[in-house]
Structures are given as C-alpha cells and as structure tokens.
C-alpha cells in the first residue's frame, strides 16, 4: 500500500509543501505515470478515488504537475548529490595528501643527510676497484653502527656495496639485499640437494655400498661398518659418569 502524505493544495506550492520533497517526486511520478499510462479503466481509477475519499482532511483534487517541473526537480536532486560526492572526494584527497607529506617528512628525517647520498651516487659511477683486504671486518661493524645514526642495524652478515669518498674509513651498506640474496642461495642449494639426493633418486648408504662385495664372496664377510659406534651414546656416558663416582666413593671408603 502506498503511504499517502497530507494532500497538497492546487495552489502554487506553499513553503510547507516544499519541505518534504523526497516523497512528492516519487508520488508525482507515480501519479504521472498513471495519468500518462491512461488505461483509465475502472480498475485503475478506482483506488485513486478510494484513497481520495479516505482522506478526510484534505478534500482537494490532486495537484497537477507538469513534466518540466518534475524533470527540473529531478535534475536539482542529481546535481546536489553529485556536489556532495565531489566535495567528499576532494576532502578525502586533501586528507591523503597531507598524510603523504607527513610521511615523507618523517622518512627524510630518518634517512641519511643529502651530502652523503650525493657522495654515494657519484662514487657508484666511478670504477673503484674493490679491495676487500683494506678494511678489516671488525672496524666495519663499528663504523656501521656510528654511521647509521641510531637506526637498528642487524649484526648478522652485512654486505659491502662500495667505498664512499676518498678517505675509506667507512662503508655504505644495504642490509636488506643480503637477506634476499641469502634466501635465494638457500633455495638454490635446496634445489640441488633435492635433485641429487631427494626422493626419487636411487641412493644408498656408504655402508651398504661398500658391503656389496662382502656379500658375494664365497665366504660371506660382515659389512664394512659392522659396528655402530654411535649406538647408545647416552647410555655409555651415564655408565662412565657412574663409574667415576663409584671409584671416588670406593677410594673414600678404603681410606677410612
């Protein structure tokens, strides 16, 4: 059931009627559609009349709205919606821009000063012969800590990139490259290990390999590594310890 609003007068729309605009658009469109459609059958006209009659307060005839005005209102509506969306977007953009700038500021503060970065780029262009022997690794670690003003540096393997400046008293290092390189090297080693010794390869232990001949002799001999010296190592250790303690006790007892 369509919800009916208080009936507007036929006179040019008053201020009060202007307030709820959301509904008139839809209902006018609906009425308009009915007017246009004009089946004008009794069935279509009936409910209208019923509603009208049901409405005691407002006994006036439904207002007549032209197509143009309805279109104008619809257009107004759309424009307003578009405006709000645009305003929202610009506001968001502003916010994002401000945030970006803030981040860049922070990063700049964290990075090395410009002068040293300049030196780095110029040094990379010149062809400096890398002489690993000139710089001791001990000094390298210390200088690295002094250099990276408080940013946490991993103690694990650092990678020398190039020497900076003429005074070779410190080195510039990139730590994240080393992790990437290590992981790739590990992956490569794992690949080779899998190809040669992984599942599907027909490998056997050295003991079995060397004992093959012993098995085919006319007088069968034992395997090449017949004794397993690693068996029961914990037991043997315990036994040794116990023996030592027992000896000490015996000595003490015999002295008394």
């Amino acid at each position, binding site marked *: 059931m369509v919800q009916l609003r208080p009936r507007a007068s036929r006179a040019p729309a008053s201020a009060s009627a202007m307030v709820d605009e959301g509904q008139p658009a839809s209902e006018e469109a609906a009425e308009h559609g009915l007017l246009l459609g004009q089946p004008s059958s009794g069935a279509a006209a009936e409910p209208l009349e019923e509603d009208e009659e049901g409405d005691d307060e407002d006994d006036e005839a439904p207002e007549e709205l032209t197509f143009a005005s309805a279109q104008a209102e619809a257009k107004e509506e759309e424009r307003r919606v578009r405006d709000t969306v645009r305003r929202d977007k610009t506001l968001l953009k502003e916010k994002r821009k401000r945030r970006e700038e803030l981040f860049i500021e922070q990063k700049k503060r964290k990075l090395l000063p410009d002068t040293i970065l300049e030196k780095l780029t110029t040094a990379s262009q010149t062809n400096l012969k890398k002489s690993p022997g000139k710089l001791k690794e001990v000094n390298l670690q210390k200088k690295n800590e002094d250099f990276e003003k408080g940013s946490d540096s991993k103690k694990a393997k650092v990678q020398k990139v190039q020497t900076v400046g003429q005074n070779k008293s410190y080195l510039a290092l990139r730590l994240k490259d080393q992790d990437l*390189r290590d992981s*790739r090297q590990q992956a490569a080693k794992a690949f080779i290990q899998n190809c040669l010794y992984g599942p599907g390869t027909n490998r056997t232990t050295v003991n079995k390999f060397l004992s093959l001949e012993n098995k085919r002799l006319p007088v069968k001999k034992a395997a090449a590594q017949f004794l397993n010296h690693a068996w029961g190592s914990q037991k043997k250790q315990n036994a040794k310890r116990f023996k030592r303690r027992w000896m000490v006790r015996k000595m003490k007892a015999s002295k008394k």
Partner: protein
Amino acid sequence: MGEFKVHRVRFFNYVPSGIRCVAYNDQSNRLAVSRTDGTVEIYNLSANYFQEKFFPGHESRATEALCWAKGQRLFSAGLNGEIIEYDLQALNIKYAMDAFGGPIWSMAASPSGSQLLVGCEDGSVKLFQVTPEKIQFERNFDRQKSRILSLSWHPSGTHVAAGSIDYISVFDVKSGSAIHKMLVDRQYMGVSKRKCIIWGVAFLSDGTVISVDSAGKVQFWDSATGTLVKNHLIANADVQSIAVSDQEDSFVVGTAEGTVFHFQLVSVTSNSSEKQWVRTKPFQHHTHDVRAVAHSPTALISGGTDTHLVIRPLMEKVEVKNYDAALRKITFPHRRLVSCAKKRQLLLFQFAHHLELWRLGSTVATGKNGDTLPLSKDADHLLHLKAKGPENIICSCISPCGSWIAYSTTSRFFLYRLNHEHDNISLQRVSKMPAFLRSALQILFSEDSTKLFVASNQGSLHVIRLLEGSFKHLHTFQPQSGTVESMCLLAVSPDGNWLAASGTSAGVHVYSVKHLKLHCTVPAYNFPVTALAIAPNTNNLVIAHSDQQVFEYSIPDKQYTEWSRTIQKQGFHHLWLQRDTPITHISFHPKRPMHILLHDAYMFCIIDKSLPLPNDKTLLYNPLPPTNESDVIRRRTAHAFKISKIYKPLLFMELLDERTLVAVERPLDDIIAQLPPPIKKKKFGT
C-alpha cells in the same frame, strides 16, 4: 739404520671436499679444480701433476662453474651470484662482480676467450665482455622460464646452446633471441613425474648439440632444425657432465654411478667416409657421482664427490708408451697439513675451519721388530680451536717447544700462546696482529721458538721476534725486481742462522737471519719444489722437486754437495722416478748426519749417504732379508735408499727423537665412510 718405536696415528679425521668443477687450459697444460668448500686448486699437468697453487675457500662461496678466458685468466661463478676472477700471480682474488641474476648455475667462455656467458637462476643468460682489467656487462639474452643449468658456445661464436629443466634453447648471439626450443623427454621411452634436468650441453661445429640429462640419456640434436637426431641411454642414474675434445672427434661423459664413458667418432665401415658417434670405453674409477669431466688432447680427466681427481691418458693419443701413460689418481693433498712439536710430543692438525691439538700416547712395553706395543696412556685431544669467520684456514704451525700456535686465513692472522701446567693447557690470544701478516702461505717457527717466519702471498717474507706475551716485527724480506711471486715453502736451519724460501718459479732463496739479508740463490729448476729442509750442523739444504729429483745444496759453501753431484750424474733409479705422489716432508736424524728421512703418500725412505747408490739394475725396494741369508748377499743388495711401505697412506712422518718416529696415516676407507650417499647398485644375489 737403527731401531725406532713408531707412533702410528690414525685419529686425524681428514676428509677432503668433493670436486665440483674442472677446467683444462690447453696453452699452459694446467688444470683448475674447484671443490665444494670453495677452494680452487691449480694442477700443473706437465710437472708430474703437481698442485702448484691454490686459493682457499669461503663458506658462502658455492662454486658451480669454472672457466679459463683469454690470456690465462681464471673465472668462477657460484650460487652467491658473483663472478670471481682469480689473480694467479699474487694468489688472491682480484674482484668479485655481482651478476644481478640470482645464483649463477653455469658459465662458459667464448671460443675466442673475449666474452663470458653466464646462466642464472632467474632464467636469464647474460653476456659479459672481458676487458683487460675487469669484465663488463654487455647485454641479456631472451629470458627463459626456468634456470639455465648448462651453457655451450658454438666454435664460431655465433650460437649458444643452453640447457635448462625439460628443454634446451639455442640462442643467436648477435640478436640474443632464442631460435629453437627443443623439448627433452623426461624418460627414455616413457613418461615420468620427475623433471628432466639437462646437466650438460656441448655444441659441435657442424651444428650438433649433445645433451646429457638426469634420466641417463645422451642425446644428439640438430640445431638448424631443432630436432632430435639420436638418443642413447647409457645409465640408470643421472649423466652429470660432458666435455668435448678440441678436434671434436671424441667426448667424455660422467655419470652419477661413477662411470665415465668415452664416445668417439668412428667411420661406419672401415673405408667409408661416413662417421657416427659410438660409445667406446667405460671407465669405473669413481665410487660416487662424477660431477666434472675435462678432455685434454691426450687424457680424460674426471672428478667428483668421492674427492679423487683421476687423469686417464688415452692410449691412442699418447706417443711414447712409458709410465707417463698410466692412470693417475690424486687423492691426498700435496701440502703438509700436520705440524709437530717434538719436545712435548704434540701434533697440530689443520682442517678447513678448525685446528686440533693432540698429545701422543706413551707406552712402557718393549718388543722386537714388527711388534705392536700396547699403549699405557692414550692419545689426548687437548684442543679444538675453531677459526673465526667464514674463510678457510690457509696454513698453520706449532712451535717446536709447543707454546705457540699460529694460523692464517685470507684476511687475518692469529697467534696464540699455550701454557702447559702439568697436564692441562691454557690458551691466550695475542691481539693486534699487524695487517701485513694476513693471507700467509706458509708459517714457520724457529727451532728455539723465539722467531716466527711468515711467507705472504705478495712475495715478501716477514720475520717476527716472539716475546713473552707479545711480538716485535724485526724485518721484511721484499721480493726482488718488482715481481710478485708467492713464497710457498719455508725451511729454517736448526741453529737459526739460515732461512730458505722457495717461490713458484725462481730458484730457492737462502737468507741469513743474523745479518738479515739475502745470502744466495739455488739455481732455478723447471719443476716446482715440493719439500725443503735444512740439515743440522752441516747446514745442507735438501730440496725435493715434483719430478722426484732430490738435490742437496751446501749453504755455507754456496754450491751443490758432492753427494748431490754424484747422484745427479748417475741418475735416480727408474722406480724412484716413477712414483706418483710428491715428497711432502724431509727431516733429519740429530746424531746421524748421513741420513735423510723423507716420505710421500705411499712410502717413507731413509737415504743413507754413506752407502753406494743403486743403479737401474738393482732392486730398489729391498726390505731387510731374513737373518739366515749370508752376509755377502746382504752387502750386495744394500744401497742408499732404504724404503719402507709398511705405513700407508701417509700424511705425515717425522722423527721425534733419536728412537721414535711418528707416522700419521689416513686409510682410504675412513675417508669413503664419511662421503655423501652414492647411487644404489643392484647386484644379483644381494
């Protein structure tokens, strides 16, 4: 000769690392061998297959490819993504250049030697230009889907074959694009879930590409059309390496079962011109995977996980059929890895990343010749000293009194002071060693342990005086005339006056330690020196060369001794000259100046200079005949060279005092027991 008690030491747990790549250089007849721990060794094949140079390894360097480029330059590439050039004069690494392609799996030098091609993990093939100082990146070829595991240039330098996983690509060098992509079957006549890895490719000048893969196949492809011509199944396991000779009429492949196959181009019938490739000879000299093979003009060279380097001369290529055409198997090191502190009966063993100090056991029993005496006190493992850093130890030494230990890696030098209290020891490191001592090739202490002599790889010799807890640098002997020649071996006289140092090419220099200047130079000999020692009292310098010649030079007189001239005139016994392994240590008896004790891997010999020399007709190896033989026969067969083969394989032999010898043996079975697993062999009945 006298009676000796011999300490037979078998607790040196020496395991060499497996051979990964082999590269043969035709012009200088040298072989570069790289091992799995990163060591690169250079063998001089014309100097009786002696290892003349080596570059110590590094933990992060996993070498996967080795090649020679123009002008005798050696390059290696590995899984750390870097291309390393080695400086063969100064014995250090010139530079390491990152290829920026991830781990490098293969490398090949162009036939002209001026370009270098590198196959990387990410599927890219990179071309480098070899400039006089460095190498320079030129361009990338088309990137492939999977890692490039093997590369080969066409002899004209226009095309390149690259083997990857499940396919082989043929590239055109000028454009860098892949012309053909040849798909390889995963299994000979069948399907398989395991991917087929192309371990090696070889490009012949008629456009044939030979590929060996992990399914055990050797396949011949036509690179013009990109099709398979012939397929051979030769093994049940991977075929891991291939090498073609220069004339392209034979090639050799190595399999994971340890077999090496020789393929030759033979004519179909005896007088037809049509030829085909036929598998002619199998060789089974290895027990584990053969990961590297090389083809020299006269020999097949193979090396693998079982750490032997096998050089098999081909009978049809050898001109003179003498002992040179025999199989050579290099297993034991050509340098000394054990040092001995005689007074305290301590032995220092050098491993790749640590040192071990042992005290010898003792016995109170006595017996006759040939008895095994029971130990009353076992050998004691006193110290396990781990080296700092990822680099391998180059050399180490313990002072004769047993209170100083020194060792050197490429970047640092370490000196430790040992204090012995009763049966315990304590170690104290001497800090702040000077930088010029690093990368030492040989370290030696003087007899009274007051001086330390260090031979660096730049050619200079440093003399350091050792004080109670510190040291003082006395002098440095610089190399002469601006040549950079690394000093490989050192010897000091027992009275501390003379120091002998041998380089790689010029003769042996003798320096006077008292006056700190060069005394004289022994004339250069064209074979490298393998062992040096100075005799007590007489100050005769005994030099052993790699062709098994032994010279004796008198330092005070500055000339060869009479005995040395006599034996050079007569010549050594032919069996003495045919020994395989070089003499690695010479020592002397303190009370018998006529005796020289020397050993190699399979025998030890006491040369008695007072006895007559053997000529070619006498028996060289004559163990003591039983006592019931007449004296006449004994006198007739006695000669100067008393050889004993009881203890073998010997790594070190030294005279501890007048009646004791120590022999460090390393049975081959103990080495094999610690190798990685081999391929299973199915034998009927087991």
